[in-house]
């Protein structure tokens, strides 16, 4: 507790703001979400097109759904997609990158070619292709898997070059002479250095995934009953919410996406500043 307090005292404003915003979203997505509530997808739960009121803080949709709860579920689902994609992408990317960079030789060549391939394949068309055919069975998880397919290559490439530059560092040799094997060297020696980078990559990947899902939703290719930020925008657009001035319905998912990003962005930059202050620069 003491250390938390001390940490808080020493952090800069953007880290504080970032932490706060991110925490709010995490709480909304993973705590508030589990509070008992009616299924927000159900039509006609309430009268449609209500303006914001104390009962419906963000009003209701044309289909008589509560926008606030719709938003909360959307945050949950989109965060889930984002986190799954980011986790798979970052873990796979970091691991493959580290392995390629550290092991070198033939394995490196093979892994690099595969990584490069995934970098040069344009992702959005392939995503459209995959989802347009997989629709029948597509769930949050499958959706995330498809998105993850393209999320690992870039971090992998970055981490590889990081690992390459680290390969000749003395402490890697020390580790080897201490009896560590390749995997252990990769995991316990190099990974900690790639960790900060991976963390920011993780955050960026979360957002990219959420954004990609939105694009697919707008193309009508997200599962029809998946409440996500993208689908919410799409539904609102579908019911002409922009021109009927149902701002809370169409606006809330957009602003949420933006604020979520800004939160994470502040968190990353703030954290970096904090670290550099800690390093004494």
């Amino acid at each position, binding site marked *: 507790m003491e250390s938390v307090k001390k940490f808080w005292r020493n952090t800069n404003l953007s880290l504080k703001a970032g932490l706060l915003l991110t925490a709010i979203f995490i709480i909304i997505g993973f705590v508030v979400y589990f509070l008992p509530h009616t299924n927000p997808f159900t039509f006609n739960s309430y009268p449609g097109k209500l303006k914001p009121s104390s009962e419906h803080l963000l009003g209701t949709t044309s289909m008589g759904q509560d926008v606030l709860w719709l938003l909360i579920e959307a945050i949950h689902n989109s965060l889930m997609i984002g986190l799954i994609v980011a986790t798979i992408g970052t873990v796979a990317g970091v691991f493959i990158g580290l392995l390629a960079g550290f092991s070198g030789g033939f394995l490196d060549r093979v892994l690099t070619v595969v990584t490069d391939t995934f970098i040069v394949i344009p992702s959005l068309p392939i995503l459209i292709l995959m989802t347009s055919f997989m629709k029948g069975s597509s769930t949050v998880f499958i959706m995330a898997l498809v998105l993850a397919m393209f999320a690992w290559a870039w971090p992998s490439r970055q981490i590889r070059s990081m690992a390459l530059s680290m390969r000749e560092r003395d402490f890697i*040799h*020390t*580790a080897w*002479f*201490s009896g560590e094997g390749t995997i252990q060297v990769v995991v316990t020696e190099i990974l*900690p*250095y790639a*960790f900060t980078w991976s963390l920011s990559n993780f955050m960026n990947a979360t957002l990219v995934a959420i954004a990609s899902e939105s694009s697919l939703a707008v193309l009508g290719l997200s599962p029809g009953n998946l409440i996500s930020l993208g689908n919410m925008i799409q539904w609102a657009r579908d019911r002409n919410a922009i021109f009927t001035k149902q701002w809370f319905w169409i606006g809330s998912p957009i602003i949420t996406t933006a604020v979520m990003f800004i939160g994470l962005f502040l968190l990353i930059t703030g954290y970096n500043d904090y670290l550099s202050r800690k390093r004494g620069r």
Partner: protein
Amino acid sequence: MSEKLLEIKNVSKSFHIGGMLSKKKLVAVDDVNIDIDDVRPVILSIVGESGCGKSTLCKMILRLHDLDQGDILLSGRSYKDRKGYDAFQFRLDVQPIFQNPYESFSMRKTVDTYLFNTALRLKIAKNYKEAGELIDDTLKSVGLSLEVVKGKYPTQFSGGELQRVSIARALITRPKLIIADEPVAAIDASMKMNIVNLFKELKDKYKVSFIYVTHDLSTAYYVSDYIATLYRGCLIEYGPAKEIMDNPAHPYTELLMNAIPRVGEKWDQELVMPDTEDKEYAITYCKFAPRCPYATEECRKSKPDMKTFDDGRKVLCFYPLNSKA
């Protein structure tokens, strides 16, 4: 089998250098021969200019670089014999100490993990407890203790302390040979002595041989039994430390000795500074000739051969000084 601990036989190593279209080659280690006896542990110092190939040679001994030419034998086992190579045994026999103690350990790990890894993964100790005892003993021999070291990150040590942890780590396996690449360069004067004294002690106590790479000739003189001088990748002089340093036979060694900033005698004359590396590396005749005050026509035409003196020292020069050959 053999009474030699380490035999470096005609070892060469070259790198490509320069820009994208350059075909320049830099022979970082050129046909070097050195032996270390197995019977009596020794401290062999390797000295020479920056960039003369000292680290490269060390890395080859440590198997961190491939050899281009020649062979290295450790306890009679050839490095070329890839089948017979046992990485496990190798790490028991040879251990490194690196120049910069802060570079030798990851900043994000506590240093004791390296110690425990060495003890457990190389199967010196059977279990954690035993490993702890062993490590404690070893740390005590370098003037530290497990209690002091445990749970600390590299930044929480002074350079000297950390270097001693590094040495202790190398000692855990009771290796036959420790390769210390500039172990005291980053350490200030008052700590330096403690470390070289430790080397001496370890040699006597644990029968460990050292290859001690340094720029600091005074400590090299102080601690080593043998000394090898490298110049632009070539071994130019080799022999017992005291004799060589008191009476250098190669002009470069002499230059080296004169360049030591000694307390008590001030420098007077100017000296010729080296040219850019790649130019000097490319020289086919005696590489020192352009800077040698004694150089003759012959020196500028052909390469000298290695001459062996009575007292066992070897010199690569047409006209060795203080000639006893």
